[in-house]
């Protein structure tokens, strides 16, 4: 069977079409849907859903408004029909009612100032005083800007309201109304600044909702993208904001303390990525009074396609660094698509060594309960215990994104990610910021549009993890005031005003203003006998064995 997929001389595009919106600039050509290219249309795969919605919108508009239809048929100017997205947009714009904003200007004939109608002013006394010797163009520009701000605030609130309504429709199963809300929101979005603020995060939520609604299209893996892509996005997220740096720093500090006095230590990293966490630990161990221990690092990560062994490559680089600071070091990579596929024997833990298990945002992925299998979280926690680790460092998103009710989850996510996006504004470096946003956007998409085993971003708050880990036979290790002080200091060095480290019963959280967004905690396993006894943990109530 010959899948014929190249266009004719009119233009052939290579590369696969994928739903990922992350493409380095030179690959943007390859995002064009090649099958539509063969039909003479250039549409980016990432835009397909939007184009589809706008086509629907046009159809509805034409059916409901024959006047619009006749206008489009006879007078509308059609530009470049090959660029389907633009063609549809231009028709749509000829169809829709013009925004009311401009007509709200009135010129005061006496002072020659443009005065903004009361309906559009913001809460602050607003009309800028414009001196008469400024040209008319400058005046109207100022006022256009101010009116846009007013509109934005208004539109921003409307967007949030519509998002909630739409999510509620989705929960109820009222897909026609949800779809219509999506269209309305997208049009509203066209009038809102999507470069920052509510416009940006709203756009991602609208996309995620629409993906969920249009699932009949087989929207493609939302968690999509190759492992390679994910690593790059993760790296940029690491650079653009302090959350991962905080996580690594805090965990390393705790691991360092736990390894005190041990000559053979073994770190098991549940998600190696580019191994960003480990150079600092290696260097700290090198400087240890009494000399560094023998360090083993076992890095778990997804298998690499195309014959590369990316785990090994990272291991080699870390080995090189260790060698340069005289730390005896060995690395082992364990390739697994899912954490629950890892078996403890793969880690080859030596009974004489001190083991640290390091999980940065991995445990929540095990919470998708398949009723036919043993709960993965229980399985994994149980074998972690069997390794008898000196310490297990756990970093998780401080959010409640695993609630069964869709609307609850959606609402929670909207606030969580709005806050996170706000905090990202402090970063101005590109392309770190843009790619970090895509990283976050993928999380949003997973939380909102996926279900079942596809939904891996099942974040739960610290309180729930405490219950769960206690029930699985772990006890908290207090992170200590040292860690807190150092984390705060780290923040002032690296980040902007607004980030806040807080201490929460021996755990640390990092957040934006008053909202914690990420938590770091440390644990050790207790011997079996003790695990049977329900734990009394300071201020919390008595808990029983956790059901996962």
């Amino acid at each position, binding site marked *: 069977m010959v899948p014929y997929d190249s266009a004719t001389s009119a233009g052939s595009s290579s590369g696969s079409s994928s739903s990922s919106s992350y493409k380095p600039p030179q690959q943007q050509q390859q995002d064009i849907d090649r099958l539509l290219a063969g039909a003479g249309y250039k549409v980016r795969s990432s835009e397909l859903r939007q184009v589809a919605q706008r086509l629907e919108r046009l159809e509805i508009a034409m*059916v409901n408004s024959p006047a619009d239809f006749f206008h489009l048929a006879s007078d509308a100017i059609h530009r470049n029909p090959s660029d389907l997205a633009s063609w549809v947009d231009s028709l749509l714009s000829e169809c829709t009612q013009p925004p009311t904003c401009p007509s709200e200007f009135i010129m005061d004939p006496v002072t020659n100032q443009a005065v903004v109608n009361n309906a559009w002013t913001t809460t602050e006394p607003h009309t800028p005083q414009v001196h008469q010797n400024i040209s008319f163009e400058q005046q109207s520009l100022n006022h256009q800007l101010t009116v846009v701000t007013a509109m934005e605030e208004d539109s921003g609130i409307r967007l949030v309201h519509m998002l909630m309504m739409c999510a509620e429709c989705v929960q109820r199963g009222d897909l026609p109304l949800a779809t219509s809300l999506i269209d309305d929101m997208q049009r509203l979005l066209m009038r809102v600044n999507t470069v920052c603020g509510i416009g940006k995060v709203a756009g991602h939520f609208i996309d995620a909702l629409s993906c969920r609604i249009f699932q009949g299209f087989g929207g493609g893996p939302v968690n999509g993208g190759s492992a390679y892509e994910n690593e790059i996005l993760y790296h940029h997220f690491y650079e653009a904001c302090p959350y991962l740096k905080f996580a690594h720093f805090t965990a390393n500090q705790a691991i360092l303390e736990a390894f005190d006095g041990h000559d053979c230590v073994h770190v098991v990293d549940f998600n190696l990525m580019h191994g960003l966490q480990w150079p600092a630990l290696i260097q700290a161990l090198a400087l240890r009074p009494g000399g560094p221990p023998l360090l083993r690092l076992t890095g778990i990560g997804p298998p690499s396609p195309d014959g590369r062994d990316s785990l090994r490559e990272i291991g080699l680089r870390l080995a090189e660094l260790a060698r340069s600071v005289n730390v005896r070091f060995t690395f082992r990579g364990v390739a697994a698509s899912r954490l629950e596929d890892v078996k403890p024997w793969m880690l080859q833990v030596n009974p004489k060594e001190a083991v640290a298990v390091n999980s940065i945002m991995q445990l929540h992925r095990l919470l998708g309960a398949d009723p036919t299998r043993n709960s993965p979280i229980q399985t994994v926690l149980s074998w972690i215990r069997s390794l008898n680790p000196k310490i297990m460092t756990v970093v998780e998103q401080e959010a409640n994104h695993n609630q069964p009710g869709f609307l609850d989850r959606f609402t929670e996510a909207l606030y969580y990610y709005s806050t996170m996006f706000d905090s990202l504004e402090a970063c101005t470096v590109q392309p770190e910021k843009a790619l970090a946003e895509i990283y976050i956007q993928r999380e949003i998409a997973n939380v909102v549009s996926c279900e079942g085993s596809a939904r891996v971003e099942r974040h739960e708050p610290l309180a729930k993890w405490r219950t769960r880990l206690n029930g699985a036979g772990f006890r908290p290790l207090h992170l200590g005031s040292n860690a807190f002080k150092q984390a705060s200091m780290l923040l002032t060095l690296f980040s902007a005003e607004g980030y806040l480290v807080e201490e929460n019963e021996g755990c640390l959280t990092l957040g934006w203003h008053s909202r914690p967004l990420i938590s770091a905690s440390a644990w050790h396993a207790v011997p079996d006998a003790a695990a049977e006894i329900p734990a009394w943990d300071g201020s919390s109530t008595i808990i029983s064995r956790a059901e996962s």
Partner: protein
Amino acid sequence: MAGSNEVNLNESRRVVPLNTWVLISNFKLAYNLQRRPDGTFNRDLSEFLDRKVPANINPVDGVFSFDHVDGGTGLLNRVYQPSSQNEAQWGIVDLEKPLSTTEIVPVIVFFHGGSFTHSSANSAIYDTFCRRVVSFCKAVVVSVNYRRSPEHRYPCAYDDGWAALKWVKSRTWLQSGKDSKVYVYLAGDSSGGNIAHHVAVRAAEADVEVLGNILLHPMFGGQRRTESEKRLDGKYFVTLLDRDWYWRAYLPEGEDRDHPACNPFGPRGKSLKGLKFPKSLLVVAGLDLIQDWQLAYVEGLRRSGQEVKLLFLEKATIGFYFLPNNDHFYCLMEEIKNFVTSNC
């Protein structure tokens, strides 16, 4: 416009891939803009919006094409051929030698769809489709640029089809096999399928051999409203109202849909009993609102003692063959391939 204000958008979304949905919805929208309620057609807008591609004498993915004008009729035909194994031959069209002296190479005369009104032989969707057929079947395809309605009504399309058939049969460079003849099949989708039928009838009556007919959801109709038309009206991209418009634009003025061009086995149709009519491959899309007419056509062929194979693709919509992103497409290609190579 659509008779009912109800817009049934939900159903079509769930049965086709996203890019197919975008493609066909785009056509639907564009065509709506081109048809005028008074029966006239905005040909300028239509030509502007239609994506066209030039022929290419250089092989692309094993297929090359060139345009040829029939000196007698001024009709344009676009010929698609598999490229030679010998790279030295690429970029050269030989109009002297036959396709082969040993093997049989089927020549498929293809009539593109468009409800008699839209598209051309050089429309991108049809150019691409013909190339795929060549690729899969190792056949030659000749795509006919027949005259369209409403500017050219019945019987222009059939006349052009007949002229193209005669032209093809008389090209020595389209001959193949040990007995040096043109192994010709007729094929078409939608209105093209309708044209293929009528040209085949004319050929049979004139004792001109056609080895087979491939009708891809052919456009037939009739005065009464069938069950499928009522059930599927407006649900999968097509409405009864637009079907009516196209028949009014094609059939002679004042005629109704029981005209034999539209309804060949209807009250004014004629039997094909005893006629040396080619075997037929009928492909029906299960979500096509005019399927009852297509099934009636199958019945009509059978009653006339003619050989017909029905390929009923239950979950297919019209235009499923434009993009190779679904099972129906590959199933269709297999069937066509078997059809044109079976008795050679």
